[in-house]
């Protein structure tokens, strides 16, 4: 039933998106493809942080692994596109499993620090073998539109279709996973690890699985981004990217897949808009490109302090009183209220004062 509902919604959205790509110009199609890439990555991250309660500041590094895998497979082995995308996701999932096994033993700040170090260290790996990874310049990724679309089909529209299609498939799969036994177990383990373990859940395995799923999404997103921008280079996968993904997840509402879409829209559209405004006011391009970075920071702090549920939480709050007045929608409204957003739990998992008593002086 849930599966059917998600599939139906995805098909409707797909139709709307196809109509939209035909109406929009090439640049907007390109932006749409970019949004779709971010949706894939942010959706994976929001599932990891919001559901399983683990944080990753290294998702930019996972995207880099997916992007470089895709570029190398296309360049040297000339695999067909679906196989490349699947392989990129699988390779990144495998690296996610490695990180996840290490991460399953780490908590809060340690995990964040270790994944942050991953984000800092991995780009230097790309520089270590310039003949394979292309050094600072990176690798160019050449793809062509499939033949059945005809020779005059705009490539940006094909990219928008490809990325949006992948994003929808990812969202449907994640939505079903979140509603399944696995998703419920993640939430249980994220909310209270000890209680989950006492209830018979294998917490360590659940935490690794969350990392694997999340990394697979990031890898797919990286491969799609490489195809959309036709280049992979270490400069594209800095800490700023990792933090941008986290910003998207937090801004949309942690644990909410719809929130991942809102967050990705903001991540792509706002920087472009800000840079246009900055350019029209005569600011240098370096200043213009840094304003969005500063804005990510402000958004993270303000949202976390004032609106921990993010955009999706705010929409649900607006929608609930309306839905309550329409008898036919009541069921929907109730279902929404039990939605995720576990991270900003009102009860602290361990209060600061409890912790401080172990402090040795």
């Amino acid at each position: 039933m849930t599966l059917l509902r998600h599939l139906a919604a995805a098909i409707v959205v797909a139709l709307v998106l196809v109509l939209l790509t035909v109406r929009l110009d090439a640049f907007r199609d390109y932006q749409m493809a970019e949004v779709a890439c971010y949706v894939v990555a942010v959706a994976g991250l929001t599932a990891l942080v919001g559901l399983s309660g683990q944080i990753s500041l290294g998702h930019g590094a996972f995207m880099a692994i997916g992007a470089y895998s895709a570029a190398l497979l296309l360049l040297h082995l000339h695999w067909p596109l679906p196989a490349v995308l699947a392989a990129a996701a699988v390779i990144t999932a495998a690296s996610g499993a490695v990180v996840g096994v290490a991460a399953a033993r780490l908590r809060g700040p340690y995990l964040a620090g270790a994944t942050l170090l991953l984000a800092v260290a991995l780009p230097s790996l790309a520089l270590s073998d310039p003949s394979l990874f292309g050094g600072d310049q990176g690798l160019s990724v050449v793809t062509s539109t499939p033949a059945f679309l005809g020779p005059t089909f705009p490539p940006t529209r094909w990219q928008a279709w490809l990325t949006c299609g992948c994003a929808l498939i990812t969202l449907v799969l994640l939505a079903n996973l979140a509603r399944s036994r696995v998703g419920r177990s993640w939430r249980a383990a994220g909310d209270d690890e000890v209680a989950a373990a006492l209830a018979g859940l294998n917490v360590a395995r659940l935490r690794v699985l969350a990392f694997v799923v999340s990394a697979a999404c990031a890898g797919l997103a990286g491969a799609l981004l490489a195809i959309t921008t036709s280049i992979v280079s270490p400069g594209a996968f800095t800490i700023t990217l990792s933090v941008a993904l986290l910003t998207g997840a937090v801004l949309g509402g942690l644990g909410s897949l719809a929130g991942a879409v809102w967050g990705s829209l903001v991540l792509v559209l706002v920087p472009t808009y800000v840079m246009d405004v900055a350019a029209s006011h005569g600011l240098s391009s370096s200043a213009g490109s840094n304003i969005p970075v500063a804005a990510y920071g402000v958004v993270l702090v303000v949202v976390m302090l004032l609106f921990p549920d993010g955009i999706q939480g705010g929409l649900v709050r607006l929608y609930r009183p309306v839905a309550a007045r329409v008898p036919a929608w009541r069921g929907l409204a109730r279902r929404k209220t039990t939605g995720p957003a576990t991270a900003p739990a009102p009860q602290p998992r361990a209060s600061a004062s409890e912790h401080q008593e172990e402090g040795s002086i």
Partner: protein
Amino acid sequence: MAELFELTLGGLSVGMIYAAIALSLVLIWRATRILNYAQGGLAMFTTYLAFTVITHTGSYWAGFVVTLVAGLLLGGLIERVVIRPVENKPPLNAIIVTIGLLIFLEGLAGVIYGGQYRSFPAAFSIDGLHVGSLALGISANDVFVAAAVLVAALLLAGLFQYTSVGLRLRAAAFSPPVARLLGVRVGRMLTLGWALAGLIGALAGVLVSPSTFLYPNSMDSVFVLGFTAAVIGGLDSPAGAVAGGLILGVALSYVGGYLGSDVVPLFGLAALVVVLMIRPEGLFSAAAARQV
């Protein structure tokens, strides 16, 4: 043999920088049980302030003092304004807020100063020192770096151990409710702890920048290695932080000298993972069971 000697001394000098960052992280961790990911960003920003002062006045020491004062003020300000609301929330909230601060400071520095690499002056000569014909592999400035961090660490230890403020700081970190009952203004002590950490971080920034250049992300790798040093020493132990910094500095110096500088960040990651796997509470910290 001579090379080993050079690498060791050079590693100790760099290690003092990691030690300073680690020390500032430990100060904050002990006071508020929060890991401040913005510590590197804060150090980068105060170093830019020093850069502005130095270019306008021409005096290195004016910039040095301004940096330390700015670090003190900004550290306290950050605790009061954005950290206080998340102090008793789940750890994830504090992590996200400090990451937000980090990226905000980096973006702000980029907007104000641009993204280009700037060279930052050193306090003393950076020519290598010699004893007779033997090159030591360090410069007068490296000696100053090590001495400055050492003096700061000793002053801090003295403050905590022998003054009334230090006693109150320790009480507030040990047990806030009891300290409060005994008349300690716990909130102020937390602010002071963050301010002191800001000062140490600013010192690290101004000391490391002659060798890394100054740009908005210049402290990222220094910060993660400082974090690694703090984890090696144990997040609870100031002495461990200094020791961890020195161990890491020397180890990375050997790796860079014998295996090439490209693998240094990866080795840092490996060191962090190994320590977290084998002894997550750090080498110098009393083992404590995780609270449930």
